[in-house]
């Protein structure tokens, strides 16, 4: 199952906003996934355990450092707009986890 991680400065503000928006999007698109949220400081730990997609505000993206090849980083400008992140998530799921999309 695809693992998604929403990240923000302290893990309590915008990462939750991203998580809610992503949850709504994946449910509407029948994608099975696990979504977590955390602070930038905790992100490395999560990513080392295997994360497919990291979403965070574009302002914080440089603070993430290097990630493994498995991990796609989506740096968002508008956190509320699923047109920005939606097609990218869909594309990654279709390429890597087609079985997790129920028709």
């Amino acid at each position, binding site marked *: 199952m695809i693992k998604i991680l929403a990240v*923000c400065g302290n893990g309590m*503000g*915008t990462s939750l*906003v991203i998580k*809610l928006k992503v949850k709504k999007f994946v449910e509407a698109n029948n994608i099975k996934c696990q979504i977590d949220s955390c602070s930038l400081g905790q992100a490395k730990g999560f990513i080392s355990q295997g994360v497919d997609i990291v979403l965070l505000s574009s302002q*914080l993206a440089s603070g993430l450092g290097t990630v493994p090849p498995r991990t796609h980083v989506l740096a968002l400008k*508008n956190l*509320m707009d699923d047109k920005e992140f939606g097609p990218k998530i869909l594309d990654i799921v279709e390429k890597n986890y087609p079985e997790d999309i129920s028709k």
Partner: protein
Amino acid sequence: MNLKEHLLSREAIALQVDAKDWKAAVKAGTDMLVKAGTIEPRYYEEIIQNTQELGPYYLLAPGLAMPHARPEGGVIENSFALVTLKEPVAFGDPDNDPIDILITLAARDAKTQNEEAIVQVVTLLDNEETIEKLRGAKTLDDIKILFEELD
């Protein structure tokens, strides 16, 4: 912790505020909560200091901000404030500037913040039409009518 009820009952709503810069815009929200007794004045300082260190980490989308700090930054009671600005101000983020709608968020603990408060803010702002109506609201009655329509 119902966002709409809370804003109306606490009179934590300031519309068409004249704010000369982003700090004044943030302060318009925190001032109402200090007056209501739900945050300590240092909560404002926390937000300003964090912004200067990290950048405006609470901008959600073009025009929209959700200023907040951590619960230990001086939150007395879970609360929200709504501020709209007469003239939008820049927060220093070209992707989302200028900002003219702010929902100040103060939560006593992480659980409340995560599971209740932010859900309600996102639900309210997840609609272009609602945002336009907030932006256009001139009086408390405009907000009451809007909130009634949403319920």
